[in-house]
């Protein structure tokens, strides 16, 4: 397994180099740069803009710009955000805790909901309940997250006053106090529910199909023949087998955890990676944009690897070497 992991990790290097070239080219291909856009004549003048372009190296030939960027990047210097004027690394680290909290909460909500719904559906396939769950799942999958977010704010924040409508914490609470953490959970819950409840479909349906499939297998028949209670068959024998495909999802979720939810974070003014990503695109903040894209690409590759390894762990029949 170690050999396999190392081989995979080495294989990621050419992949990442290719990705970096694509990311860089795409970023530079976008029209305009961080100094163009709607100019405010009060704050600036053409000389300043020309000077900054020179300073930031936008006038260098593209291969040189790429080389400068990638050498810094490999050494851990992600550059300085052209918009926020601080190192990109600090900027990302500032947002990661928020995004992780949101991502993990959302994932937990997804898992719990999917687990309950999937087990119910798998045990009673083609019943009214099963179809209702499938209908619910697909409707949720079909509703765009920005629509759901706006509705959730309108209903739960403005009408019912259950949740705050924006932000990640109430600024008036003392940092580190008990109220502070309660306030953070209170703020994260609504966006997490919107995110989590919307993406249950794949988990639920996978689990359901797997349970149905397993329930027709010989070992289930054997267990029934020897008189094992149905409850035990489903909750122990079948479930253990059916969790396997779900575990692989965990690897894919890895990138999504950090990547955040671009739209949801923006609508909830929840300062995380997703919101940062969107802003860096609109303001052509290349260093931030490229660092985030690279980070997400790496996490996706890493997540895939993790999924493969986990698969081997939970299912010894699959051999990695």
């Amino acid at each position, binding site marked *: 397994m170690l050999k396999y992991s190392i081989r995979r990790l080495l294989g990621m290097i050419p992949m990442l180099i290719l990705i970096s070239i694509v990311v860089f080219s795409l970023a530079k291909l*976008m*029209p*305009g*740069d961080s100094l*163009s*856009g*709607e100019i*405010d*004549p*009060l*704050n*600036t*003048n*053409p*000389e*300043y803009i020309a000077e900054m372009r020179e*300073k930031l190296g936008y006038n260098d030939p593209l291969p040189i710009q790429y080389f400068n960027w990638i050498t810094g990047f490999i050494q851990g210097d992600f550059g*300085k955000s052209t*918009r*926020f*004027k*601080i*190192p990109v690394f*600090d900027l990302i680290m*500032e*947002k990661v805790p928020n995004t992780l909290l949101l991502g993990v909460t959302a994932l937990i909500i997804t898992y719990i909901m999917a687990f309950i719904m999937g087990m119910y559906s798998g045990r009673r396939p*083609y*019943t*009214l309940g099963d*179809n*209702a769950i*499938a*209908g619910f799942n697909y*409707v949720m999958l079909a*509703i765009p997250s920005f629509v759901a977010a*706006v*509705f959730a*704010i*309108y*209903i739960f*924040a*403005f009408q019912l*006053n259950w949740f705050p*409508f*924006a*932000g*990640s*914490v109430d*600024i*008036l609470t003392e*940092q580190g106090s008990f109220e502070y953490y309660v306030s953070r959970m209170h703020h994260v819950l609504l966006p997490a529910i919107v995110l989590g409840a919307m993406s249950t479909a794949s988990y639920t349906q996978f689990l359901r199909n797997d349970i149905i499939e397993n329930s027709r297998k010989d070992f289930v028949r054997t267990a029934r023949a020897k008189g094992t209670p149905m409850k035990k068959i489903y909750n122990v024998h079948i479930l253990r087998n059916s969790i396997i495909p779900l575990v692989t999802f965990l690897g894919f979720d890895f990138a999504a955890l950090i990547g955040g939810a671009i739209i949801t974070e*923006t*609508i*909830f*003014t*929840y*300062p995380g990676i997703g*919101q940062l990503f969107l*802003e860096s695109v609109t303001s*052509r903040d290349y260093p931030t944009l490229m660092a985030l894209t690279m980070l997400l690409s790496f996490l996706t590759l890493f997540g895939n690897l993790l999924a493969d390894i986990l698969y081997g762990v939970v299912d010894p029949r699959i051999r990695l070497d």
Partner: protein
Amino acid sequence: MKKKSLLWLFALVLIVSAFLAACGGGSDDASESGSEGEGSSEGAADGEPQKGGTLVYGLDAPPEGLYSSAFYGIATDFEVIELFDEALINYNENLEPEPNVASWETEDNKVFNFTFEEGVKWHNGEELTVNDWVFALETIADPDYDGPRYTNVQTIEGAEAYRNGDADSISGIEVVSDYEINITFDEARVNNLTNLWAYPMPESVLGDVPVAEMSASEWVRSTPIGIGPFKVDKIVPGESVEFSKFDEYWNGDVNLDKIVLRVIDNSSVVGALQNNDIDMISLQPVSGPEVEPLENVEIVTYPGLTYYYVGFKLGKFDNESQTITEELPKYQSKELRQAMMYALNRQEWVDAFFFGYADVVNKPVPSSHWNAADDSELIQYEYDPEKSKQMLDEAGYVDTNDDGFREDPNGDEFVVKFSHYATGNPTFESRAQAIAQYFEAVGLRSEVEMVEVNLYYDMVEKDDASIETFFGGWGTGTDPDPSGLWKADQLWNYPRYNNPEADQLLDDALDIEIVGTDQEKRKELYVEWQKIVNEDLPMLYIAELEEIMALNNRVGGVEYDVSGQNSPAEWFVTE
């Protein structure tokens, strides 16, 4: 069984659409339009100012976090800065400078003598002296400075030499005492004072930070200090800022105990106002009609400094030599441009797309500036399609091949190609189409092209051949001089308008030999200039925007004029 599941699906769809209907309802019933208080307006709550309380200030876009007047880049950051810092010089409702912390004297508009108030404290307890101002000016003139404000310092004598490393200090700055300073400019200009950088920077905390690292330092990002009535207690990056009353504020009492600033998404603004979650926020015109019916919120408008226009590309500009090198023939006919102006129903357009929060204009100087020409002196270009058609006929633009559209005087096909920038805003395309339709109504075939906004301004600036007529907007500052956007040697003169006579007027208005310190005389020259560009129409002036603020009824003491809001020290809330 199958039927039942279908029923379930149907029921679910119904439930979801019921939600949809419930949420849509709120925004539909607000079609009546009404513009309330014009100009400066009192806050919503009446009566005596009350002490204490917390006011929640909303922002509809996240700040970047550069909380220093010398370094900030976007207006949102400045909104935050205004709550905890003050300028040395203020501007009144005619945008004329007024003493705040500093008062000044000058005899020749070249050497200025400034006197500071004594006993003004920074939020860290240090006293403000002229050295803090010198520190700010030298920081901005430093070669490592990465903000955009050098233009406000470069007119000081010796600033250029300091920036090039030829001098250790700026020779035009002479510190007399802790409260007195002389500043000498490189030449006498009438707008030296309004152009000068008038914010001090706290040397006591930033003095040891290298200039290149200042914008990333904690004194700019997380613990900024100023001299204003409120001090920053805590910043949660990108979402909120907590301010509390500064007890040692130099200029009178402060009413509020706290201000909490919250960033909220545009989609939540109306709901947050309705629920009393925020007390005041600057509104987008599109939210106006939804906020107006709310009983707990009052809308206050005040004149803005932004105008929108449809420009014609009349030439090409060479940035190396800073000259207009080529004249483009298509829109050179003044009669054609005037006829196109008469074809526009600007009032209808403004009502439709700015919901009444904008006024039709006929000049490129905001009406509230002291040098704005009176309407009686300008051609008004009332919507008159018949006159437009007649003028086009006379100018030779007639339909020669009976296709329903006019050809140019040579008999060739004539198509008005109109470009507009595209962002995520869905109304931009329809407002561009509306303008094209006005042109088509008088027989000019029109095409609309929507271009992504970053690319758009790049193309406009570089005189790309595909830009012929274009939509644009400019904001003007407290300095009323339009030279930077209008003279033939300026990059941002996007229409490439080249009229030596008009340029001469702009030069004269700044020439101290000609106008001296006589503001009336300056105004005459600017009015003369406005008459020329009003007749020439290198761009079709559309409208100037109003700034819209929503105030909760419990807020009082807030006043606005064209220079912005009054000091937050005077704001109060009633419980």
